[in-house]
């Protein structure tokens, strides 16, 4: 079992948070896909990681980071080329260009990163200087070119070929000039002499030995220069030089590929460290976006969260022009029960507890004023979706999931049970939840249960928290507001306060706010034996 299974990651909003984590380079992106939550035993790695991100945030310099990000964005994947070189293949010019650019960029990135004090030496980006020197002999240009400077032999052959080409072209121009002078005809840019068949000069051209008919139409003929012995010799010399040049070019590419293979350790280490730094910067950007604190690890089984701002909910509320009321929690005993009004944020409290721990154990900072906890071996959020493909109802899905994880109570896990057994009748449901709480109370896990069932809050050893809800609201306040979802969200006090041992009754008031017909509210009040006015006066 993974520390955070996919359904839980989706429920608590971890997947949403990870989507906001955006490394730039291919190496950072790959590393992100391999990110896993770290469990007990990884304390030193995690504290180290949090300190690195916090160190980065302390030294945050937007201009410098802008330049670093520009370079991170220019990196391309070179590991394929390195692998091919190691397998003995000869790389192509495009690969050498990418390797050279990788080395240039790594060096530039390394220089920029030196300005940060928080980065330990083990994250210094190594540059394969030897490889860079052979890829750009004599300093090289901005790009990659198998220049004459790679070997003297190449330079000599290419020079000889250039001379021969120039000679051939000179010779052709000489012959063209001679023909033009003697016949009064001119050659076009493609080296063709075009003449009408009825032109008297046609006969004269026909008998010349230094030109040859190259094309013929209905009315016109095209002549071109006939290569003489000197030109044929030059042409053949140029071809054989080309063959030799290509042989040498191949051997240069082979040597360069071997050099790349020889430097594989440095190259691959650079890729890894670039990815590592890229991901670190992404974590820093995320922390600046959500707010942050460095989590603190404790030995005892405990979870203290002060003013956690749930990034998923607060980002949604910000779009609606509202502000998230931070969540504070202190879970000490094995089981804590949260009761309170519908729409009072019980589920958000559960999700927030899960998300804070999951983020911290993924090596992220936590968007809270403080976060103190001991590492969890797993985080489980109860599932309640109907699952018709497996023949499971909501209740069925929930119990099926619980049956799998409840035996793990002996481990240091985090159980988040959101209104367990709400899909069945209240008598049996209440009994079932009571039994669940008693079972989990004897384990080593931390459990947070949200429920509307009575009879749990007074169980021995169980902490009871309650959503403040609409309790402090007078009838006058309520009348001032229009009764809709938004005003409900504004009036609700989402803070968790110590429970009073009884289950608050806000359902009818909330239903009234959400627009249920007054007749129905009145009827329900009658059933409860209270006057409809008392629903709001409570």
């Amino acid at each position: 079992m993974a520390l955070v299974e996919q359904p839980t990651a989706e429920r608590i909003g971890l997947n949403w948070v990870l989507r906001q984590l955006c490394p730039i380079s291919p190496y950072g992106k790959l590393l992100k896909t391999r990110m896993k939550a770290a469990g007990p035993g990884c304390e030193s790695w995690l504290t180290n990681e949090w300190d690195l991100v916090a160190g980065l945030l302390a030294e945050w310099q937007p201009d410098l980071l802008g330049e670093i990000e520009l370079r991170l964005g220019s990196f391309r994947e070179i590991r394929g080329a390195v692998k091919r070189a190691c397998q003995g293949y000869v790389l192509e010019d495009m690969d050498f260009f990418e390797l050279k650019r990788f080395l240039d960029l790594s060096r530039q990135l390394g220089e920029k990163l030196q300005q940060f004090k928080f980065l330990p030496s083990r994250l210094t980006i190594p540059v394969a200087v030897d490889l860079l020197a052979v890829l750009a002999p004599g300093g090289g240009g901005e790009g990659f070119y198998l220049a004459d400077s790679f070997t003297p032999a190449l330079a000599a052959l290419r020079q000889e070929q250039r001379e021969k080409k120039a000679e051939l072209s000179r010779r052709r121009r000489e012959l063209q000039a001679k023909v033009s002078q003697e016949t009064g005809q001119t050659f076009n840019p493609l080296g063709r002499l075009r003449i009408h068949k009825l032109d008297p000069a046609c006969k004269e051209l026909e008998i010349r030995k230094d030109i040859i008919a190259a094309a013929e139409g209905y009315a016109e003929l095209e002549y071109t220069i006939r290569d003489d012995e000197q030109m044929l010799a030059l042409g053949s010399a140029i071809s054989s030089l080309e063959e030799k040049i290509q042989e040498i070019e191949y051997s240069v590419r082979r040597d360069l590929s071997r050099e790349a293979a020889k430097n594989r350790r440095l190259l691959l280490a650079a890729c890894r460290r670039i990815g590592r730094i890229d991901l670190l910067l992404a974590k820093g950007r995320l922390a600046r976006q959500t707010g942050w604190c460095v989590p603190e690890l404790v030995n005892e089984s405990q979870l203290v969260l002060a003013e956690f701002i749930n990034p998923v909910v607060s980002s949604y509320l910000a779009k609606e022009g509202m502000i998230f009321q931070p969540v504070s929690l202190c879970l000490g005993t094995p089981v804590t029960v949260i009761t309170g009004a519908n729409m009072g944020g019980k589920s958000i409290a559960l999700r927030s507890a899960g998300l804070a721990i999951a983020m911290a154990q993924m090596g992220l900072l936590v968007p809270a004023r403080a976060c103190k906890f001991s590492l969890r071996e797993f985080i489980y959020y109860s599932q309640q979706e109907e699952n018709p493909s497996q023949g499971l109802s909501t209740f069925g899905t929930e119990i099926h999931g619980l049956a799998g994880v409840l035996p793990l109570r002996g481990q240091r896990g985090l159980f988040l049970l959101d209104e367990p057994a709400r899909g069945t009748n209240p008598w049996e449901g209440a009994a079932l939840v009571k039994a669940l709480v008693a079972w989990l109370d004897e384990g080593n896990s931390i459990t947070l249960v949200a429920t509307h069932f009575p009879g749990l809050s007074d169980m021995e050893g169980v902490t009871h928290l309650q959503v403040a809800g609409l309790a402090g609201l007078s009838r006058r306040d309520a009348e001032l507001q229009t009764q809709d979802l938004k005003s409900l969200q504004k009036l609700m006090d989402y803070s968790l306060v110590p429970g009073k041992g009884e289950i608050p009754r806000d359902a009818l008031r909330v239903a009234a706010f959400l627009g249920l017909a007054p007749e129905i509210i009145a009827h329900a009040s009658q059933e409860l034996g209270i006057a409809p006015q008392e629903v709001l006066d409570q």
Partner: protein
Amino acid sequence: MNDLTALALRHQSIAVVGMGKNTGKTVTVNCLVAGAVQAGIALGLTSTGRDGESTDIVSALPKPAIYLPEKAVLATSTASLGRGTARLEILDTTGIYNALGEIVIARVREAGSVEVSGPERTGDLRAVIARLQDYAQLVIADGAIDRIAASAPSVTDAAILATGAVIGRDVQKVVGLTVNAARVLMTPAVSNLGEQGLALLEQGKIGVQNQHGQVKPIPLTTAIDAPPEISDYLSPDYNCLLVGGALSDPLAELLLQASWKVPGLKAIVQDGTRIFVEPGRWQRLLRRVAVNVIRPINLIAITVNPVDPRGRRLPGRQLVGGLRELMPELLVVDPMAEGG
């Protein structure tokens, strides 16, 4: 330097588009390259789609290669890099891909022939031209296979149209088709288009506009087969059809019909390369409907290839003369003829 290159060198980017294959587009490009070399101008080259290959991939006949001098830069796909005699230095990658791989910027270190296969989309072409302009004073964009491909002329400062014997059986036919194509390309710019209308056209959507610039979008993905509901949207008030996409023959016919019930009917298209209307119908359309574009094409010259790839030849002087007579504002040349 001949007249053609002298004219071309007054611009920073030029598109060369052909009326069809074997209209001498490559010869025209080579002619411009030679002129730029003579004038000592730093040259950049790209194409829409693939070009400069040594045999015509459609007809399998040999065709002239594009020859680039030292220091010229080109934007071509990685697969085309080794397919020429020029030796190239790879300068940069662009992150833009075509079917043959990523488009890279390369500099010619030793002159020779090159195969150019550039971006296939208009937006990408614009970006690639901008990248080449970092290195070059004049960028040539060579249109590829399509009759007039990927609206290259709409993203360059100027355009040259290549035509030739291959498109018609006699001089009159070639001249007629070419003059029509040139006039279509030179469709004038619109003067009174609202912001809403411009946005709709840029998104490639269809709609109608009234005199106050108010726009009603027509919920159609394409108007190419002229669905009859388009006429329902046209009225004496909303009398301007915005065509984000191709203005096709059926759509032209629909506009002609609608022009009887909607006086002062207008149509606005993105640019002249999106108009695909048969010459006779185009003439009739222009008499009844005002057609305008948002990006006018600055057509500066027509080049003529009087020979078709199988050796049939039309009289070059008559072809050039016929075109000059009908398009006196344009330079018309046969780059292969004496004196160019």
